[in-house]
């Protein structure tokens, strides 16, 4: 069975440019998470979806970050415009549903803003 798939694996952009990350969760998983992981730190939740509804986006910097999960499957996380401090690894994870506690992570997208 395929795991959580993310693309691209790496992205280098200049500051003020837009960037988008894509995630395909495990088939049948209703809950999808986007996390950001800075070097030497644990992941921090940006947004969580239950199907197509964003139920926890309190940590998402809404002035420049946006996310969508159309049809409750794939999800896209966008940053516009990117800042130097956005350089990090962006991780997507999924779990069966909100009551299921085991989350499976993708390999992440490493973003470098120069």
């Amino acid at each position: 069975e395929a795991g959580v798939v993310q693309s691209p694996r790496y992205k280098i952009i200049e500051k003020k440019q837009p960037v988008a990350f894509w995630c395909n969760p495990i088939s049948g998983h209703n809950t999808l998470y986007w996390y950001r992981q800075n070097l030497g730190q644990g992941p921090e939740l940006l947004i969580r979806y239950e199907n197509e509804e964003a139920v926890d986006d309190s940590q998402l910097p809404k002035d420049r970050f946006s996310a969508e999960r159309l049809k409750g499957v794939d999800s896209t996380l966008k940053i516009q415009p990117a800042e130097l401090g956005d350089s990090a690894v962006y991780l997507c994870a999924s779990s069966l549903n909100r009551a299921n506690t085991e989350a499976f992570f993708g390999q992440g997208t490493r973003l470098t803003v120069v």
Partner: protein
Amino acid sequence: EDQVTQSPEALRLQEGESSSLNCSYTVSGLRGLFWYRQDPGKGPEFLFTLYSAGEEKEKERLKATLTKKESFLHITAPKPEDSATYLCAVQAQRSGGYNKLIFGAGTRLAVHP
């Protein structure tokens, strides 16, 4: 405020030298405590979930235990392939059934032959 603190930050072991990693937590209403392994350039890989004090889980050379304030990940006779960053996370109970994982910064383990 919910908080997770892991120690030590880094640990170097000789192959076969057993040790323990610590995860201390402060959370209102613990729903679960999770251990993940993360290799360089990869996403975290799920290892264990512990739900209540006194619970223990084992997998190969790893054993996780839980008290009301902390969890330990015991590594018995480690091998070089056990080298990775080990992340601890807690899930707090929230109204409406919505929960989120709060991660510690991790312990970087290096096992040398």
